């Protein structure tokens, strides 16, 4: 189902896992301030980054994403004080699944994003997109 009348995305496609209470407002703020980042970045929301299943990350790569960025809550998480350690464990599990499936582990990245972290988010997206460009596209690798 290609959209013939629209240009396809040119840059690497990034999936961002964000949290409802902490990083979502930060990412929204980037938009509210009209700070630009690549339009090939897509954000999906979970309550807490500890709720991300490693299989979802693998699924993202199998669905055509080139990189996965996890916006972690760090100390700000209202649910789990050890949220960061849990999220790091999820990222590590995902990397095992990715390696087994032939995706480079550096395609997943995790960083703390706060509720007003508009500029840090935009910078992360630019830098991560550049890294994924250097690494090459997943779809191209699969072909």
């Amino acid at each position: 189902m290609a959209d013939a009348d629209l240009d396809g995305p040119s840059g690497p496609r990034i999936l961002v896992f964000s949290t409802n209470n902490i990083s979502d407002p930060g990412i929204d703020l980037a938009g509210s301030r009209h700070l630009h980042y690549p339009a090939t970045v897509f954000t999906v929301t979970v309550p807490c980054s500890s709720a991300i299943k490693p299989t979802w990350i693998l699924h993202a790569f199998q669905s055509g994403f080139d990189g996965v960025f996890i916006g972690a809550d760090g100390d700000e998480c209202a649910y789990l004080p050890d949220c960061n350690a849990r999220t790091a464990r999820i990222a590590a599990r995902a990397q095992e699944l990715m390696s087994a499936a032939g995706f480079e582990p550096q395609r997943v990245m995790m960083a703390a994003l706060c509720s007003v972290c508009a500029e840090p988010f935009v910078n992360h997206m630019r830098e991560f997109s550049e890294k994924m460009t250097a690494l090459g596209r997943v779809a191209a690798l699969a072909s």
Partner: protein
Amino acid sequence: MSERRIGVYICHCGGNISDYVDVAAVRDAVKDLPDVVHAETSLFACSDGTQQDMIKMIRDQNLDGLVVASCSPKLHLFTFRGVSRRAGLNPFEYTQANIREQCSWAHTDDRAGATTKAIGLVKGAIAKTRESSALEPMAVQTTPASLVVGAGIAGLRAAIGLADLGLRVYLLEQSATVGGWVGQFGPTFPNDRDGREMVADLLEQIQERPTITLLTNAELTAKSGSFGNYAVTITVHGESESTVEATVGSIVIATGFDTYQPEIGEYGYGIDGVVTLAQFKELVEASPDGIKFHDRPVRTVTYVYCVGNRQPGGNEYCSKYCCSATVHASLEVSAVDPAIHQYHLYRDIRTYGKYELLYEQSRKRGSVFMKFPDETPPTVERAGDGRLLVTTRDTLSGGVDVTIPSDLVVLVTGMVPRENTELTKMLHLPVGGDGFFNEIHPKLRPVETVVDGVMIAGTCQGPKTISESVASGLAAVAQSGAMLMKGVAELDPLVAVVDASACTWCGECQRVCPYEAITQVEVDGHDVASIDAAVCKGCGGCTSYCPSNAIDLLGATDAQMQALIENLVEVTVP
């Protein structure tokens, strides 16, 4: 997957979306997708007119799913859930696609890219809706009673407010007397009201109310049950130890703060004549006829601000009350003896709001304010004549070093979080990086915690003035009333659920759930995990630990998340 009937609305948001995204192209890209029975663009999806149209469409077309692509769900998730409910559609069959904050506004430079992205976001939302099912909020009968932990100014005022709503109140205080810090204060800013008098007044009001049970020398020693009906055990210490058992619908935590204790040597602390603000205020209050220290008249006082606060790597926050309290103290000093010289050495003066007037008054009465640079804090040493020499760099005089011979040096110490390990553990209270308790949302849900029915008030949440403490105590009262006055409360149904047929009981989920929501039960002769929906906070932390993938978080199930993810981008077929 059975057939669905989904309606899709793509909002122009005036031009906020449509100026940067080709909304007609988005509609055309999704209108013929399987299960989409209606797709349209609208100028303002949130307008009353469009809401009415949506309700009519949901009913006429018998829709069982709704997608609105518009602004951030932070603005209108509840608006469109409400539209769904009014139309007879289950609100959890509604999905919002954020194509404004996370699309049009972020990509004003890339119309083609923004349009492609918006198509992906809407396709993802449709796919997620296809996997959604109707959920019902749980109704819980609630007990019209509250427990207030801590009888400082916030807890005292909250207890009165709760009782006046008609709730039964248990007010417990760890120490032998009520009032906390404020109960030890003399005159306080901004209106010189005496702290001890205020507390005595509140205590009298409490004693007039038979529905308040005040327990001193008491602590909360056990809590069980779930939101709406917490069973609490209060242990009262004394000559003979006793316990009080109660059932309460809400718990207000008002355990207060501790003051920062300077290290020996910190700004000369330990040298005779270097005192904290609290000690100094006692001295001023006890000296109506001229301030003396060791029987020597005090002619010069130097204040050092921000002690133990705003320290990189330490307590980085500002304690908010101390600038105003110090400026207020300086006015008390000049009232006793206007000839006393007062020097204020500060990083920044934060006598915010109306307290600015106190600062103005203090300067007019002769107080000298000198700003020191962060990297060069003042030093304090003892001179041969017994006086104290305070040396500071005055930023506003071109950075010259000034030495002030002083009779007293007052260290303006800030607030630090109180040690509350047992309570924190028992109630599963979220603690922030600074050590104070965390609310759900700093602006919109400032006194609720993620633990339903447990609220935080006063300085256990972070530094506050007396009036701010009382305001947050009363906010916790209002919130308790909102939860308990109806007698029935609804709990969000977005919780974790176990697929008993897939669970093999390994205990991992129980181990990682800090809320004790998970128990081991037997189903058809097999041990499996069971999650108490009334206790589960819906964080999803257990789901990623299950080795059998037997746990799903409603609202973000495996099926929903995978469908969402795989529909965001087109897979390039080589």
